């Protein structure tokens, strides 16, 4: 059955490996560039000749190996993505939005904006870069303020207090009948203002307020939550999606900028383990909540083939990205090829390794006259997969690419 225009179908979760993920220890392993990654047995999933087809992964850390082997059937890996920058700010912007232009919304915001109507928290932002391009306000929730959400679910209620040896509350600020009159008068007032305010920013602000106010009643559906970590916010986000309150979720994990002196390879591998555990947690909790979920894992850029001292690595504009879904997502809901890798980086010695290689845009085979993948190519495809490629709200944010689109 086709999805209704207002139904995103799946929850999109964008996960940023903030700082620059080392693709060698994850989904684009090459031998000889990292101490500890020197044996063919440390790469699983396929041989060197198949690295542009199957999902190959580094097995140095069992958690990483388990993640890729378990999820490969529901996973699409992009390697050899040319980010064109070594700068964190530009890299994050590009790899999360598909455009290096300033002010472009991240993909999670693009999806959220397209399906925002009537939802009080379309984009839940757990942490990290959350540019929305003015399309909507991200709902920024940290685990530390989960408890404070309770006061927003029912704005007219206050809790019990024992103070000065007296009991106060729980109570309501206004009797329900009076509150209903206030809300109706307020809605009418905003309608009149919408006729009167003609400056573009004022009109836009007012429209956002009206839309937001129109969605807040749904917050009563939100389950009470308290937290001790980001996982609790993710859980809240999944439940919010299930109740029609949210569309997408954005979270990031830091610590990937593992230069010399910032932990080097050891820290990088620890962060990749934490990353796959976080993504697995999202997939598992979504399944437990009967939520079809698609995670888009991206990073600023990759890491240099050489060490910049000790076993630390520098920035390198060749990145990888994963799209991974849980088993509840159907092929119709996510019309993307699964269990394969698209794109590749060059192999070889330091001087020539880890350069994005052009590929044939149809067969995806290496092709010197083909195209180099950029975040723009990938997010154009993801827009189509999410059925937002023709969304009017995104008309201000076209994604430009060179060469043909990916064929899905």
């Amino acid at each position, binding site marked *: 059955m086709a999805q209704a225009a207002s139904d995103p179908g799946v929850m999109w979760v964008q996960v940023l490996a903030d700082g620059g993920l080392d693709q060698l220890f994850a989904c684009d392993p090459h031998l000889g560039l990292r101490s500890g990654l020197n044996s063919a047995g440390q790469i699983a999933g396929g041989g060197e000749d198949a690295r542009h087809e199957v999902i190959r992964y580094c097995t140095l850390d069992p958690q990483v190996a388990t993640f890729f082997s378990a999820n490969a059937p529901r996973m699409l890996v992009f390697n050899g993505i040319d980010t*064109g920058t070594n700068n964190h*700010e530009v890299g994050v912007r590009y790899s999360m939005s598909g455009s290096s232009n*300033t002010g472009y919304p991240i993909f999670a915001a693009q999806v959220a904006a397209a399906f925002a109507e009537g939802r*009080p928290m*379309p984009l839940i932002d757990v*942490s990290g870069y959350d*540019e929305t391009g*003015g399309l*909507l*306000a991200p709902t*920024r929730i940290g685990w530390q*303020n989960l408890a*404070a959400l309770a*006061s*927003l*679910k029912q*704005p007219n209620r*206050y809790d019990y*207090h024992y*103070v*000065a*040896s*007296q009991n106060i509350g729980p*109570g309501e*600020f*206004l009797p329900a009948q*009076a*509150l209903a*009159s*206030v809300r109706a008068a307020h809605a009418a*007032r905003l309608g*009149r*203002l919408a006729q009167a305010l*003609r*400056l*573009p*920013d004022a*009109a836009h*602000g*007012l429209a956002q*307020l009206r839309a*937001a106010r129109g969605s*807040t009643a749904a*917050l009563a559906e939100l389950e009470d939550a308290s937290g001790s970590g980001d996982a609790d916010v993710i859980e809240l986000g999944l439940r919010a999606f299930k109740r029609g*309150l949210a569309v997408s979720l954005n979270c990031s994990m830091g610590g990937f900028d593992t230069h*010399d*002196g*910032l932990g080097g390879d050891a820290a990088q591998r620890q962060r990749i383990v934490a990353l796959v555990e976080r993504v697995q947690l999202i997939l598992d909790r979504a399944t437990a909540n009967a939520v079809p979920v698609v995670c888009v894992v991206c990073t600023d850029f990759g890491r240099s*083939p*050489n060490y910049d001292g000790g076993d*630390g690595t*520098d920035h*390198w504009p*060749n990145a990888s990205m994963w799209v991974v879904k849980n088993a509840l997502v159907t092929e119709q809901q996510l019309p993307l090829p699964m269990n394969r890798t698209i794109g590749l980086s060059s192999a070889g010695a*330091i001087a020539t390794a*880890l*350069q994005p290689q052009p590929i044939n845009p149809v067969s995806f085979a290496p092709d010197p006259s083909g195209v180099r993948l950029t975040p723009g190519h990938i997010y154009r495809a993801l827009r189509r997969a999410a059925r937002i490629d023709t969304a009017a709200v995104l*008309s201000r944010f*076209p994604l430009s690419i*060179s060469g043909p689109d990916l064929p899905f």
Partner: protein
Amino acid sequence: MTRARAVALCLASLLGCAPQQQLAAPTPPECDAACQAQAKPAECVSTQDYFDDLAWPVLEGCASCHVSGGQSAGTRLVFKPSVIPDYLRQNYVIFAEASALREGGASLLLLKATGSVPHGGGAQLEAGSRDYAVLLSMIEQLAAPIECPAIDSDGDGIPDAEEPQPGDVPAPLPVSTGLVLGDNYAVLRKATIALGGRLPTGAEMAAVEGQPFTALTPILDALMTERAFYERVREIMNDVLLTDRSREETGYLSIMSELSGSSYGGAFPGAAEFLTADNTGNTNARLVKTADAFAREPLEFFVYAAKNDLPLSAVLTSQFRLVNAYTAKALNVPWGAVMPAEISDVEATDYDDFRPTALPGINEAQSGATFSEYAGLLTTNSYIRRYPNTCTNHNRKLARYTYRFFLDFDIMKNAPRLDLSTVDVSAHPSRNNPQCTGCHAQIDPVAGAFMNWTRCFSSPPRHYTLDDKGGSCGAAGWYPDAEMFPPGVGAGAANQLSPGDKPKALERLAAHIVTQPGFDRAMVRHFFVGLTGRPMLEAPQDVSTPGYANLDAAFEAQQDSFDALVADFVAGGRRLKPLIKAIVATPYFRAVNAEASDRVELKGMGGGVWLPPEVLHRKLTAVLGAPWIEIFQNSPVYRARADGLLLQRYRMRLFWGGIDSDAVLTRQQLPGGLSAAGSERMALEMACEHTARDFARAPSDRRLFRYTEVAQVPSGDRADPSQAGIVQTLQHLHERVLGERLGANDPELIASYELLSSVRAAGAAAVGAGQVPATLDKLCGGHIDLYTGAGAATAAPNDAAFVLRAWQAVLSYMLMDYRFLFD
């Protein structure tokens, strides 16, 4: 060369305009006579026509990168794309401005184009080529532009050059057309709330009523001496510098532990004792307040300059540190003329009174040498901690943000795309590879200027001499020139620091920065953004964007206004208060409406910004007499630090769209579902807590319900003389809460009256039917101290007629309104 060809060349391999890909058409190495003839036509060609017909075809190649949204959009040369109706005329002006840039007496444009100085796009022209000659001629002509007699071939009175052409796109209307500015009252109210956190007084309103706009000047002058104004200055500048990160819940512990521990070699032996000993018995409150003061020092330089009417250059060039009594005591340094031992009770001092001092334990050499370094906020712990050095970034983060904050230059917008195939990672590419040196030639010298404030590994911020470093940054105290561009105040040999300058490198850098036009632009930008509440417009980046030409017109109009502000700022001695008055006078602050809708070119004008939580916190206090607080929280820390729900990071501040200077760095200008729900809760809760409380006061002391009494029952007939006090009170509320001055028959006033009377009637009926209690909810009774709970034993007032709750409903209605919650 055609634009299409240039673009094709640029994009062919997705590498951008890398230096290996020469865009210049095949041209002779020397410009012979024939070539010169092409570059200099014999007949009269006006300079504009010369630009259109000869220069622009050359420059089109440049414009494939130097264009809005292009790879070089962050440079000082950004052309308009041909989708703009008058792009040639605009590009003529843009080229003329850029052609004035010189380096060593030569045209910087030509130096860049020939690759004679670092250029992200490499060499694009050969000196002596025909194209070079064209650009050289163009630049020469700009000194005295050529005008030719107009040709009117068809004799219709319209010169050929101005004849309408097929496909011409109507230009957007000028932004001044159809724009409605607020009257003096509206601007006064907006300014007093935004700058002073208060409402205008009756005297102030009377003083501007019917007067020229300049009548606001003395009021603004007085407003900008108030405490709340300086707090707003801190907030605006923290949105830029983000140094408040050290104040957040855990950050203050680390900044204080550095002082009180051994990080400074025991330079502050009294710190630990001061921070833990507290005669009020509350150690945490003192620690928090001291840490706050230490963290806010960079912001205090702006406050200090404003208070003393100094040029804002003082924020970088002041030869001192700033301390209040808390930090003076903790650091054991004089607080102005007061010696630390003489500060017996910090609690009795004015917390906002920051005074200049020397800080030998941090800013002066530890190894017995005589070096010291004071460069305003650049040499504060808080600034350097915020953008920390690591083993590999070599202070580049500090340099990058110093450029951005104080030179209005975001180097990352200038970075070319990288072509990995030409990068030799073993040969220090940031020093040697042309793809990298375009940026690093600028960033690395400034990074080196911070050389005295690092030991090149994790170490607390302070001034280190070569001896202090003990070789940790290399033999010369910094990285070898072969690896990194040497310390300087900018790019190029002329800006390089001499050995004698290096011990005071930041002082030299500061002195240089404040002479640069970028400094003036940076200062104006920060406060323009702070007062308008939204980032400045950027040129639209994609010609396929709907309304591109209108968006570009909006951008250009704002740039014109901005340029005028910069000129005034410079002419006025670079002082903050005149700058703020000038910003208030712009339509960006004053506009309230447009005569027609769909005027995209008016983007950026007027309000439409969701109020920052800090501003709303003060606005609530101004309107109701109290902020929105978490009830019954009576701890000293709560009162010392964050006396309001809107200011607390983990209560409403982030939900509301505020920042934490750490992970959340940008403010939301629009409400979402949570902030909309939060604003409704705020409105309902504040109306509950303050309606009966206000009525309990004598009428002359009331802020809200000044012209009526509880006994006056809204009858539903507002024209009835008995309702006059009620109508007048509604008028007062509309003005006080919403800034609306309404006549008695205004539809909005009628709507408010109808809400009041209908809620009252329905409520009284419900009371009569036993469906709701006759008394107010206890919290709404107005008799309980909201911090301590004192008075809670007293019964809530009777409200059987439902008048109090009806007024409470009206107040809620107003507090959740667009005009209350938005700028």
